[in-house]
């Protein structure tokens, strides 16, 4: 039964990818890198759906959800990118240290 081994490896991969993504979000100051971290986090979530679906015997459902997550993530990333571009236009910076000012 390869499935059990796979489950452990898959879970490890999910945790590592999610951990890297969170680490990236928390430590980076460049907004593009933070967005990358966020993307990595959603990748871990997508992987978790696929793994979960397989694990609990409903691979179709898991993969369906994974597709939905990918789509939403793409949309969110696009919105995020557009916000970063706007912020850059407004402040002339993409570093979070430099855009602390709350009033526009």
């Amino acid at each position, binding site marked *: 039964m390869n499935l059990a081994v796979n489950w452990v490896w898959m879970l490890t991969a999910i945790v590592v990818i999610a951990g890297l993504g*969170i680490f990236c*979000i*928390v*430590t*980076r*100051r460049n907004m593009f890198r933070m967005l990358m971290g966020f993307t990595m986090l959603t990748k871990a979530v997508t992987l978790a759906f696929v793994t979960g679906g397989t694990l609990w015997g409903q691979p179709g459902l898991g993969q369906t959800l994974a597709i939905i997550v990918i789509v939403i993530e793409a949309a969110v990333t696009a919105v995020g990118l557009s916000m970063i571009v706007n912020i850059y236009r407004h402040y002339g910076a993409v570093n*979070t240290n430099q855009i*602390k000012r*709350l009033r526009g």
Partner: protein
Amino acid sequence: MMNSSIYMAQIAVPIGGAALTLLVGAIKPRLRPAFAFLVGAATACLTIITLAGAGSPGRFVIPWQGVLNEFSLSPDGLSAYIAAAAGVLGCLILLYSARYMEHEEGLTRYYALVLLFIGAMIGLVTTDNLLVMYFFWETVGLCSYSLIGFNYDNPDAAKAGLKAFITTKIGDVGLLTGIMTLYVSTGTFNIFEIIDAAAGGAIPAPALSLAGFGFLMGAAGKSAQVPLHVWLPDAMEAPTSVSALIHAATMVNAGVYAIARTYPLFSEVAGWTTAVTWVGAITALLAACMALYARDLKRMLAYSTVSQLGYMMFGIGVGGLLASQFHLLSHAIFKALLFLCAGAVIHEVHTRNMDEMGGLGRKMPVIRTCYLIGVLALAGVPIFNGFWSKDMLFASALHSGNIVPLVFAVATAVLTVIYSLRSYFRVFTGELSAAGEKAHQSPPSMLLPLVLLAVGAVTSWLIIGIYSATLHQTGLIGEAISVGHLIHETVQSTALLLSLLALFLGGAVVFSTRKAKTAAAPSGLALWAGKGFGFDQFYLALLNGAYQVAGAVISTYDSISNWVGKAAIFLTVGFGKTLRNQNIGDLNKNLLWLVSGIVIIIAIVCVKRG
């Protein structure tokens, strides 16, 4: 029996008059003295009418459930005469005040307080409810405080008022303890019921003892007995008319009254009568010594009051209730006379120092005569009222066998003769002093009370027949005595020898030293007596020590709390700084907290599920 609402009237008239004085003062300030005098006269009439029914008093009751338990008045022989003294003397003093005080500020306050004082004193003695008595007792204390500090912009007067208030308050703690103990033991505040209950053995001995000494403490405070006498000499800062009121008509009689009233209750308590006797005897002698060396005319009179009050206590202690109360009445009359004379003199010469007076007799003949009569009564010269009552005191002491206190009392009598006669010579005879150059006779409205009181000082002992009969009907003394009986007894008794001996010794000292114009500078004991035997210094040192201890305790506490405070500040500031660093708007940090929160939530869910 008479209509008992008159009892209420004799309190309501002066107290209501006090309230109305404020109104009169606001509308027509010129009428204040006349109005106050009219109220005083009405009160005096009411108290005299009450005397007639004092033998078998009715009872006036307002069932006042709540604060004062029951407002009841029942003036028997003991209280009716003291009330009458308060009313009549108060009336004369109000008449005297009209001219004496005319140039003072704040007369509305003065007249209102004097009337309240008189009303409260009458209430104090006529009520038979201890709680109501305590209420009036404190009212009297309040009035004395306000009147002693009448010239409140004079720091000495303000201090003297405060001293009187605080010193008497110390005694009041004892009195209140006594009243509460009696109430707890018997469940009633009515003094007659309490006496009956005690006679039936309802009060345990320790409680009765506690109450007895509590009452003695309260009386010592009010009647200026050693060691709580220190307020009375200082109270001389008051206007002289107020001094007369405090010394003769009101205030100081309250303590003696309280002891006489509770005598049937406590006379069986072990050591109580001895304590009363000794407090009285020691007070009499010490105060007489202090009076001997006083230079201030009013201060000398104040010490003599303390000394005479000591006599009254002494009289109660040796069982001479009649003698003591009779002396109270005599003293009230001659001391009011002396004070009003002293006031008239001080009014003219503008000094209270006897060394600066002299030869005033030629300028003020009427006052000279009145003062002489007062002095002779104080010294206990035969025929004057002070002689009869003092002689009765000695006779009671002899009768009860208290020989050592009696020696004190006789020594006091010798000293009294010396200081009183000497004061007369210093003020009214000899060369006219510079201060007396401009002195002239007082106006008639000031002389009239003096003359009336002088007549009283000569004749008041003639009422002994009625007075003792009333006290007898009240059940306070065994048998009444008539005037003839009094004379007969006095002439035959050994006490007469003691009185005459005291007079002779005192007179010899006065007349032998009279020629020596310059008194020797006081030294040793005399100096000590002149300074009031160091009571004030002792209390000052005591208070000082107490303050030092309290200061040390507070400073220790302060340094401890300081450290605690510093630690608290340090912790708070540190905590605040730490917290502040978490909320500086750093996006990464916020996200870290967000993620941590999510992790915690997930952890909780996992633990719950798993």
